[in-house]
């Protein structure tokens, strides 16, 4: 695991965080993010609560296309999928041009460009909380994810990293597993 330069984190007095959406999203899409936040709150003392007030939310989530004003334009289908800022900025941006799969088995999607929304959300939340990219291919914070792939469970590397920043959730039982199923991934790299 890695951190951003200076190891920024949410301070102790801001660990019950709110999140809001820039767009009018369905409950099904919002539920995807709720599940993604839950994966991080399960292993840390952090809590995440949805709010209707996008501008007052600690974490601001939005879908954008192309140049959307932060100097990091999106590039259309595939390529760059999303990005997020380090603590305590709170911005999480996703490429609105992607074919986001919200429910169902992404592996069986007829769309070769189908991307699992929850998988990307879990990764980007890691950035919001202070984690950088990991070389551990089993980690959520590994930078690449193939289309038609689902990878949502935190790996041990992710848990070690986030607990270094925030400590452990008192109810965390210490078990983690990583499930990654994919079609297009071809790497045969050695695990760190």
């Amino acid at each position, binding site marked *: 695991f890695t951190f951003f*330069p200076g190891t920024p984190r949410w301070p102790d007095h801001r660990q019950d965080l709110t999140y809001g959406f820039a767009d009018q999203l369905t409950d099904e899409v919002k539920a995807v993010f709720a599940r993604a936040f839950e994966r991080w709150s399960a292993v840390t003392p952090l809590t995440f609560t949805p709010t209707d007030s996008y501008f007052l939310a600690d974490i601001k989530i939005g879908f954008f296309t192309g140049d959307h004003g932060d100097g990091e334009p999106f590039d259309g289908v595939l*390529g760059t*999928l999303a*990005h997020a800022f380090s603590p305590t900025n709170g911005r999480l941006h996703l490429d609105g041009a992607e074919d986001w799969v*919200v429910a169902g088995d992404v592996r069986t999607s007829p769309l070769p460009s*189908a991307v699992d929304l929850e998988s990307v959300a879990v990764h980007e939340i890691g950035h919001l909380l202070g984690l950088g990219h990991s070389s551990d291919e089993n980690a959520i914070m590994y*930078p690449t994810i193939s289309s038609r792939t689902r990878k949502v469970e935190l790996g041990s590397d992710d848990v070690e990293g986030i607990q270094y920043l925030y400590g452990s959730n008192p109810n965390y039982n210490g078990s983690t597993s990583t499930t990654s199923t994919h079609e297009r991934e071809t790497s045969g790299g050695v695990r760190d």
Partner: protein
Amino acid sequence: RFFPNITGLPPLPFSKNGTLAPWDAFTKFAGCRSGEKRDGLAKLKQYFNEFGYIQNAPSNFSDDFDDELEKALRVYQQNFNLNVTGELDDQTLQKIVLPRCGNADIVNGTTSMNSGKSASFHTTKHFHTTEH
């Protein structure tokens, strides 16, 4: 575009306009190595610049496979647990073209996955373990 129910959708081409994903064109550089010049190599340098592997980008990248590109490739290969060849081998290109997070792997040249693990980092971890 959201797909709440992906079953029953008809098969579609790789993307809506029939073109490839943004970085698929990089596969044409397979086998390219230091000293060569290939049309479009500047875009690959832009890719490495975007993700932090090339610092201090010039206003225009050249299409030359220069030392800077080779150095970037070596760090990238180290970070992604690939064979560190400094060349655009198939294994490396297959990784480069994958969809990915837009956040840089190297931020301000100071942190970097595998390649950023310094001796002091390991020392810190060692002391941590000893403490326990």
